[in-house]
């Protein structure tokens, strides 16, 4: 059963998890594969919240990428990342990456030590709305933030990022599928946890 489908089956058409909390886990994965796709995402929530923790390791992983359906992203998809490493603040603006990468979401610490971890979280607002047109167009968007501290060495990272799509062939509302990927495809360390939540 694909990721997300199990929760969708449990929720059924009513979309109620039986809890008073507005936040419910849709799927948690401890896969160490660099890329992970959530499919059959329930359309019963207002927002999606994704949380990713990666334990420290001597490997070189690089950056964080994401896409909703197509890869690479359509030509009108863009992201901008405001990040800080050590004492330097930097802005990065860009669009579609090469095949197999999607849209760059964050600069990660590519020299994470074994005594620390990385944390990333992204929120896709009103992901299940219809797309519309003109001034009522609801193009998909997301906001993300995270950090990669590295005690005892250089390369502290933190960032705030924007993810938007507009009009191209890959633009989809509502969002039914999300792929998240770290780095160049190298397997991640044991203990990596990726969880997708729904917020009512």
């Amino acid at each position, binding site marked *: 059963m694909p990721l997300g489908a199990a929760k969708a089956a449990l929720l059924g058409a009513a979309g109620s998890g039986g809890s008073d909390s507005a936040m419910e886990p849709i799927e948690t994965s401890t896969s160490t594969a660099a890329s992970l796709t959530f499919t059959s995402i329930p359309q019963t929530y207002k927002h999606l919240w994704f949380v990713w923790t990666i334990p420290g390791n001597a490997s070189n992983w690089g950056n964080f990428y994401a896409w909703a359906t197509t890869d690479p992203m359509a030509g009108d998809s863009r992201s901008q990342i405001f990040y800080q490493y050590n004492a330097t603040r930097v802005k990065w603006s860009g669009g579609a990456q090469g095949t197999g990468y999607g849209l760059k979401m964050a600069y990660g610490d590519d020299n994470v030590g074994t005594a620390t971890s990385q944390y990333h979280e992204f929120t896709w607002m009103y992901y299940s709305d219809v797309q519309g047109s003109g001034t009522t167009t609801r193009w998909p968007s997301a906001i993300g933030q995270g950090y990669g501290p590295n005690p005892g060495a250089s390369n502290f990272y933190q960032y705030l990022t924007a993810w938007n799509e*507009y009009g191209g062939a890959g633009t989809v509302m509502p969002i039914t599928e999300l792929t998240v990927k770290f780095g160049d495809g190298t397997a991640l360390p044991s203990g990596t946890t990726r969880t997708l939540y729904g917020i009512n």
Partner: protein
Amino acid sequence: MALEFIAEIDANSVDTENLVFSAIPQTYESLRLMGVGNTDYAVAQSMGGTFSLQFNEETTDSKHGFMRIAADYYQILLNIEGTYSDNTAECGSMSGTTSESGYYPATYIVDIYNYKGVAATGSVQYFARSTTATAANQYSHNAYYAGTYGNGTTPITSLQLKSALGNWMRYSKFSLYGRD
């Protein structure tokens, strides 16, 4: 930490300058505002649009204040060290109607603390994050805001979301949550 849905507001029926949450429950430790929005104003570029908060819908009290750190398309903006004694509290930006042939929504998360007017914890405070990325990135931004409102011991029971330049366009939508 529990997250409970309180209410949702939008500009779906008509473009509007102000969106208002009223009768905010006084039973939570803090509030979280989440949403998307854009303005019908022809923003010049980058962070030309302004999204502001007006606590208790006060518009003439000069008790709001905020500061900002951000990146726009061209550069890393210098800190806005603080605007005080203002009638609104800035908490975000948006791209406007001329943003490279599209209506790119800005995405917002705003956390609000000390909103119940408890003397021991001081005035209401907020911490906001606002982002957009547009086709040529000329209207993109990533911004953090922190602000306050001198409510003293007066509880915050309503919250006005103001599109300072023009109106919120019709897909703009916000949800308010309470956190225990």
